[in-house]
């Protein structure tokens, strides 16, 4: 349990620390160190959970089970690698004089704040606190989106703030309804505790839960970026500093989805029709296809990949909606590989943008000739995200596809259509950026590409062979969510 507290405590310290001295020179390093310790703590936590199963903190405030523990580890990991990237990135930005000291303070402390919120969402046992933490994540990142203070960034931040705020308010209403249904059977204080709710999910009033789930889905769905609630996402991703985009895509969306899935488990327990599943499938498929189509029209490189995030979140939502062991397994796997790959891509994208000094894709050319590592990183990352084997994304998409063929064969063609369109949309842009002769005035920048290499390496590994403990982990989570396991 100490591990969990540690994971929560370190970022908290980080917030205060950076708020004071965040502008000093090698704060990036310290940021890396903090995240590194968090990672170690989370690994420790994961090992505990692996050994002794679900952990419930004495005061029932925190609950670590096989579902969220691997998300915690993933969060810590991506947080670490992104902070590695951000230290060099931010240094470069500061050289360009884009940032003042206060902004740097803000940046680093909010980075930690965001991590704290993420850990909170994952570890808490209380649905209400989960909501609070989710809102907290929005509040922490909203100022980072407008970090550069350009009109666009402010507009993006405002939209992000209002839309997510309204959405999250709906989620709160859903939570209240949930609580309302819970107090009818349980005592007031503990009624919102996940552990309690999950045990007596059967007695909860199905009608209320259905309504509650709609609110929760629309609310958290706004954060997941489900079409048509996604509109804030591309703006926020494209205007903020790139490390922010990386963690937004890699972590925030995942955690929102995590929240939805938690609630789905409750609703499925209470109502015996598959309403929640159908809603999620509908949203997922819609987001998948629309996101794929959006890819074709992009001009800004970061918008491009944010739309691809929408598309992939749609895929995961769909998979969770399909339910069943294989689809759930696939969805969990997809969560992992997507956030790894996507954050890696954003790292390369950030460097590409720094190399060329622009984000508009028709000015970025010949990356491979300018700085081969960045070019290859972007190309291979795109390969991975487009679902080419032997990368892990392919594995999960393959499984989703076959699960769909089993349960809803008539939906499979749509999935394939989406994959095809998305692939074309990504590549028609990316290929012309990485290949070709290098234009005038493109110079290599100082870049630390270890995050990319590590992430893509992991994704490759997951695609070739899923290591035993991870598979075991996934299957436990699958058991938890879908009630049976593919193994």
């Amino acid at each position: 349990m100490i591990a969990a507290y540690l994971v929560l405590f370190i970022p908290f310290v980080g917030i205060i620390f950076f708020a004071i001295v965040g502008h000093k020179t090698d704060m990036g390093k310290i940021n890396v160190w903090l995240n590194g310790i968090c990672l170690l703590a989370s690994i420790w936590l994961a090992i505990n959970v692996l050994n002794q199963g679900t952990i419930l903190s004495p005061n029932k405030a925190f609950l670590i089970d096989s579902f969220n523990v691997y998300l915690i580890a993933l969060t810590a990991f991506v947080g670490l690698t992104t902070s590695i990237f951000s230290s060099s990135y931010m240094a470069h930005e500061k050289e360009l004089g884009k940032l003042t000291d206060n902004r740097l303070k803000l940046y680093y402390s909010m980075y930690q704040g965001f991590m704290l919120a993420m850990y909170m969402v994952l570890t808490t046992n209380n649905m209400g606190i989960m909501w609070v933490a989710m809102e907290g994540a929005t509040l922490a990142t909203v100022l980072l989106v407008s970090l550069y203070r350009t009109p666009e960034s402010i507009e993006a931040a405002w939209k992000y703030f209002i839309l997510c705020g309204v959405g999250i308010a709906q989620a709160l209403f859903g939570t209240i309804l949930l609580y309302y249904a819970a107090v009818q059977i349980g005592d007031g204080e503990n009624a919102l505790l996940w552990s309690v709710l999950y045990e007596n999910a059967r007695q909860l009033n199905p009608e209320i839960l259905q309504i509650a789930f709609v609110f929760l889905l629309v609310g958290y769905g706004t954060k997941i970026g489900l079409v048509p609630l996604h509109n804030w996402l591309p703006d926020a991703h494209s205007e903020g500093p790139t490390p922010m985009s990386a963690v937004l895509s890699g972590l925030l969306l995942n955690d929102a989805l995590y929240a939805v899935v938690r609630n789905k488990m409750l609703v499925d327990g209470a109502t015996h029709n598959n309403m929640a599943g159908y809603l999620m499938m509908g949203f997922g498929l819609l987001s998948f296809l629309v996101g794929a189509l959006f890819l074709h029209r992009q001009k800004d490189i970061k918008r491009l990949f944010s739309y691809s995030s929408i598309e992939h979140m749609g895929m995961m939502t769909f998979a969770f909606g399909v339910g069943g062991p294989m689809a759930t397994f696939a969805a969990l796997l997809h969560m992992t590989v997507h956030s790894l790959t996507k954050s890696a891509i954003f790292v390369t994208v950030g460097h590409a943008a720094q190399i060329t000094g622009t984000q508009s894709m028709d000015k970025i050319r010949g990356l491979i000739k300018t700085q081969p590592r960045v070019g290859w990183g972007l190309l291979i990352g795109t390969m991975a995200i487009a679902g080419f084997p032997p990368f892990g994304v392919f594995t999960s998409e393959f499984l989703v596809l076959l699960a769909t063929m089993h349960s809803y064969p008539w939906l499979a063609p749509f999935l394939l259509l989406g994959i095809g369109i998305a692939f074309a949309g990504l590549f028609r842009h990316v290929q012309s950026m990485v290949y070709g002769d290098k234009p005038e005035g493109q110079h290599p920048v100082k870049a630390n590409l270890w995050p990319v290499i590590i992430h893509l390496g992991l994704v490759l590994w997951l695609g070739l062979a899923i290591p035993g403990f991870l598979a075991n982990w996934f299957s436990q989570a699958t058991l938890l969510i879908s009630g049976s396991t593919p193994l």
Partner: protein
Amino acid sequence: MILLSAYCAVLLSFASGLLALMMNQRQIMLAMSQYSINKFFSGNVKCRNWVNKSLEEQHYPAFLRQAVFVLLGFSGLFAVIAGLAVLISNSVITDQIALGLPWLPWHIRFDALSGFFFLIIGIAVCAVSLYGPGYVSSYKEKEHPFASLGLFTGLFVAGMLLVLLADDAFMFMIAWELMSVASYFLVAFQHENPANRRAAFLYLLMAEVGALSIILGFGVLASFSDGFTFDALRESKLSVTWASIAFVLALLGFGMKAGIVPVHIWLPEAHPAAPSHISALMSGVMLKVALYGLIRFSFDLLGDIHWQWGVALLALGTLSALGGILYAMMQPNLKRLLAYSSVENIGIIFMVLGLAMIFMANGHPQLAALGFLAALLHAFNHALFKNLLFLGAGILQHQTHELNIDMMGGLIKKMPQTSLLFLVGCMSISSLPLFNGFVSEWLAFQTALQVDVLENGVLRSLIPVAAAALALTSALAAACFVKVFGLIFLGQSRSENSENAHETGHKGMLAGPALLAGLCFFIGIFPNAIIQLINTVSGQLLGQTLPNDSALDWLWLAPVSPEQASYSAPLVLIGALIAAGICYWYLRRNPLTVIRKAETWDCGFGGLTPRMQYTSSAFTMPLRRIFARVWIVDEQINKDMQGAMNLDVAAVHYKLQIEDHSWPLFYHPIARGVNKLAKQVGRIQTGNIRTYLSYSFATLLLLLWVIS
């Protein structure tokens, strides 16, 4: 043991790829070699010197290239050994590798079919690895890093071999995509040329679409069975409808890779873009892997064949064969021409495979075996001579820096060995007797002529038409390759480059093609050597071998029965030699009649200039007029007038553009549709926050209304 050598083939190709990555890591190599020497042969001074010398700054790149290709060659060698071994021992070996999904390790199965294609790949790879070092030496390390070329070549070969080994859908797809992606990088290798980039993108896009439809095909099978192993899929019992759906999906997917009309368009774009030895592998071998996939899927997994599928294959094959050769005829670019001719040959293979299916479905397994034999044999032959021709094209490009056959000419004197090898390739591909192309075509005709046994009147009248189309195809192919050889090697040089061209200095660049040419001739004379092997394949797959293998001795080829048809290439060869020898001896005995050399008769006008010769477009003009509908021909003749009244012609400009019908028919509409759809969707993102709010508002209300 057999499996071991198969694994060796795969691993070695991987190794060659990884070794290529060391191109820029000379220091590491140096350190490693020093360490190993000190550890193992510390006494041996000679080898130490050798290593140090080869690792010196100036020698290092050449040495590494050599090493990479040597590894690749060994992988090819092992592939050949494994293939032959499994074919001769007529065995089926299965295995599992602890990779892939936790509940689905990679299943390996190495049977006669895989073995046969292993053989094909192995031979091709051997030839390429002989040829490669010379060819790649011309690349500048700066623009075209050998590291990526070698790496992806290795991965490409490994991917193809793994496809053949795969015994479950998951591994199959991984290997398949590995093959596609690696070859994509190879096509995009010379990416400073926009056309190549476009070609690469098109190639990858179509590969992806094909792969998706293959996955869907597997999905259909899998949803009728438990698990994705091929054994499970074999067990799956499908209704005719679902089976046909699965077959159509597979046909689309594999056909896209094999390049049958109308999904062939990536092929003439991509193959010329890649380096020549890669185009050789792609055109000669990768298409065969697609063929393997189709055979595996339809004959092995789906099991019971329906004659409608055969008809579909027959029709598509005929279309591809005719279309391919007619388009090939019109290409001035040598490699594009060869690529289109691959479309033609794949078409022929599909035709014969379709015949095999029809016979199979109508309960004539023996004739099915015959068709199967013809198809596989033609696949084998095509791999040989298409590789040969692409490698030859590579030499030409290497020596003349040209690919446009209107810019060459007269090379037979400047490059005698190359011209001889290329001649062999041309003769085989235009299926002349004594060469391997003819044998498979002969068998194809024999198969088609067995139509009498069928009940169905439609088929009985359809198949002969297809046979006629096949005849037309082969005649056109002959015409096409007369043009190719004639314009490239004969006549007078049409350009500066070909004027100054000379034979290549690298022995390897000749050795590779020579190997293939020798095989072409050998198979042409002793086809039974390979037919015996294919017999085991059809024995395992169809449970049926040729009607009378008894007639298969080294001398006679009588697939059905000696009464019905027989062909003995050795006797023909002997006869030809006798006849030629006699008249040669008779005519040359008179010493007075030695040949006198003189200028060519120029009809009394001044000297003959190269520009008086027939060009490619002139040569094919009659056919272009006859089959005018087949192409989208854009022919422009502009005259520059001058002089008084501006009446006399100063210069004539001739422009000829040949376009493929399938673009405006299929592809442009799809592209337009997607863009239009994306445009519509783009309207969601209005930028006005109140609109966004109303979206979420409406969604909420809608959902509430839905669930209430």
